[in-house]
């Protein structure tokens, strides 16, 4: 009945790219220029320097910067074996800043550390509570550690920033190592041919940052996208020992939160394929299962089974005269195909009642459908009005067309010109005279034809 596989989606053209480095990292940049001027045997060097500030996301992300997360926020599922990830609209964002600003430029093919990290916290850790501080408060104080930072242009000390304070032990246990950071971000390039294009070319590249920790079944996991700008020296070793560079008195480390969401890992049975392979597909159609008690009469049992297989249900039915009875009904969702045999229009539901002589029961299927359609039409005021107005327009135009034809035929002999080419003045005079005859006649026609 069903099968499953677990391959990459066919036709989903996805390319993984190691990194897309921005031409300039965000932050302060100094452009230096030197020119040596030689004239008359003497050389003079002119030097100038210009400081630039490359703006870029630092302590908060815009609403459109996060293109998606997985697992979905608030979702439950078999996520215990999942490493959560964040998809970023800007493909270069993971490399716009540096976890280790002092690191030399990477050689081709070498891992390039990202400054973003997804830290999944389990419910029992417990997850640190995000709270708001200001940019000016992003500094070590007391038992809270924050790495040295350089203020940038456009920043005000009063700007709000969301942070979490993570105990040092927990940070050492869950934070990626400096080496890990080179593996946890990449660019996902999707096939643009199947993508819509609006004002500009469609976006093909997305930055992806992966978490490094599995969830636990039965527990909520809070995944937090944090900035690790300047954190490289303070990250734990591969065995989870805290960095020796963390000051002695530090009890918690303060991390800037860029995005966070929560999901729950549940029982392993709750997978997409697990749920779907377990759904009942028997009987395969929308029909009543034949599980009632046998009546003892084989022909009756067969009849009930047949009716069920054709999608019929026996329903209580109040006849027009008030007598209660039981009639057959089936919806439009049949377990089998049926030819189209109904010949509308009908002016009432009653002609659509069908009598089954073998059982002595009515089949109210199509009568019920007809009544339902009528009720739905009446219920929708806008539709009912529009339909009536349109029908009226149709009726008027038909009568008017006939009227004109009658006038042309009847009065054509009076006119020097051929029928249908009456001069406008004469035509309206004749029309006014003839209207007294034709309009009542037309009205009678309509009345005659009405059923």
């Amino acid at each position, binding site marked *: 009945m069903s099968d499953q*596989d*677990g391959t*990459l*989606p066919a036709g*989903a053209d996805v390319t*993984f790219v*190691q*990194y897309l480095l921005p031409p300039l990292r965000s932050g302060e940049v100094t452009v230096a220029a030197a020119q040596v001027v030689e004239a008359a045997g003497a050389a003079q060097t002119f030097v100038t320097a210009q400081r630039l500030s490359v703006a870029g996301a630092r302590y908060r992300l815009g609403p459109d910067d996060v293109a998606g997360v997985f697992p979905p926020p608030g979702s439950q599922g078999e996520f215990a074996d999942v*490493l959560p990830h964040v998809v970023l609209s800007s493909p270069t964002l993971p490399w716009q800043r540096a976890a280790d600003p002092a690191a030399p430029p990477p050689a081709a093919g070498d891992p390039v550390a990202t400054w973003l990290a997804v830290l999944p916290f389990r419910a029992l850790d417990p997850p640190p509570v995000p709270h708001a501080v200001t940019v000016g408060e992003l500094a070590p104080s007391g038992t809270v550690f924050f790495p040295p930072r350089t203020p940038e242009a456009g920043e005000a000390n009063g700007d709000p920033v969301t942070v979490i304070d993570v105990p040092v032990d927990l940070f050492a246990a869950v934070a990626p190592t400096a080496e*890990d950071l080179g593996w946890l*971000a990449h660019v996902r390039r999707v096939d643009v041919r*199947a993508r*819509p294009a609006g004002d500009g070319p469609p976006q093909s590249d997305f930055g992806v940052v*992966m978490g*490094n920790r*599995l969830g636990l079944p039965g527990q909520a996991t809070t995944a937090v996208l944090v900035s690790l700008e300047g954190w490289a020296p303070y990250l734990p070793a591969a065995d*989870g020992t805290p960095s020796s560079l963390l000051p002695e008195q530090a009890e918690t480390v303060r991390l800037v939160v860029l995005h966070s969401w929560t999901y729950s890992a549940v029982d392993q049975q709750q997978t997409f*394929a697990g*749920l779907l392979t*377990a*759904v*009942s*597909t028997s009987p*395969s*159609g*929308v*029909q*009543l299962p034949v599980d009632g008690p046998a009546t003892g009469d084989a022909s009756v049992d067969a009849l009930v089974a047949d009716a069920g297989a054709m999608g019929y249900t026996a*329903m209580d039915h109040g006849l027009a005269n008030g007598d209660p009875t039981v009639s057959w009904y*089936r*919806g*439009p*969702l049949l377990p089998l*195909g*049926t030819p*189209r045999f*109904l010949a509308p229009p009908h002016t009432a539901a009653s002609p659509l009642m069908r009598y089954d002589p073998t059982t002595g029961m009515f089949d109210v299927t*199509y009568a019920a459908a*007809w009544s*339902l*359609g009528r009720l*739905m*039409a009446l219920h929708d005021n806008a*539709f009912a009005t529009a339909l*009536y107005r*349109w*029908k*009226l*327009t*149709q*009726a008027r135009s*038909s*009568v008017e*067309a*006939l009227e004109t034809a009658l006038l042309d035929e*009847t009065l054509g002999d009076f006119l020097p010109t051929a029928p249908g080419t009456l001069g406008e003045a004469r035509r309206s005079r004749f029309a006014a005279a003839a209207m007294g005859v*034709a309009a009542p006649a037309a009205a009678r*026609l309509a009345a*005659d034809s*009405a059923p």
Partner: protein
Amino acid sequence: MARQLPRIDLRAHSLRLNATPPVAMDDAQGSDLALVVSWMTRLHLLHGVPFNYLVPDERMLPVESLRFFRLDENWMDALLDGAYSIGFAGVAEPTSRAARSQVLAAARGGAARVRPAMLAASPRLAATSSENVARGETSGGGGAVSGFLLRSAVVAGWPGVEVRGWADAAGTQPLALLRLEAVAPSLLLCLFDGVAAAVELREPAEALHFGVEAVDGGWRKETRYAAPVGDRAAGDFTGTSVDVPLRSAETGVVDVAALAAALRGPSHGGWSPPDGAAFTAAEFGLEMVEGVQVVRFQADG
């Protein structure tokens, strides 16, 4: 010149009135006719039809079940006829009959355009409709409509579930979707233009995610070819797997650098990247991707 006007023969003219063709249909946007046709088109796709008319008995669609159906055209005819029956304007029957069949035909024809139009209006989804065209989807059965009802936790849990249908069991003739909608939190209604023989439900593409596999209390990762090897494409499973090194089993923190080294190394069962092929964060990402789950159903009969 005295001349007698001919008597008007009402009977004859009644026949003529009946034969009058309906006036040209003004179906401009916003006109009465456009409103009527679009309302009937929606009715054709079962919009607004009370659910107990569709499934009169709950036992027909138990919890966690999937039921295929063929849409009864007679039922739809009766439904639309009933809806059209209101607002009788007293005109000769055959004239209104011609107009009626034009309206109903327009409503029927419009049913196939509702979903593409809706997708085209949504820039993010426009790809799907153009993809439908590219996939050569056709109306499979001369106006026949089929579909399925899925009542399952899947509907609520995977809101973006993707559905594809085919007119043959082998899956070579794709069918266009007329309607695909979660009509209730755990109930998915799907209508195909044609008679579906096979239906595939697929995890949404955004579920392309990273993960590992639980094996015997530990974690392993099936490896993929990170680069084409022989006749195997990049992304194909190699059939082997590596242990996922954890910093500590208790916290479930993956030692990423060590895992990357394990995936890169020749130690994992017979394949190593071709000479000169780099193993970077990109290849690591590819290795870590979990497959999107797909379940296919075949309609009986």
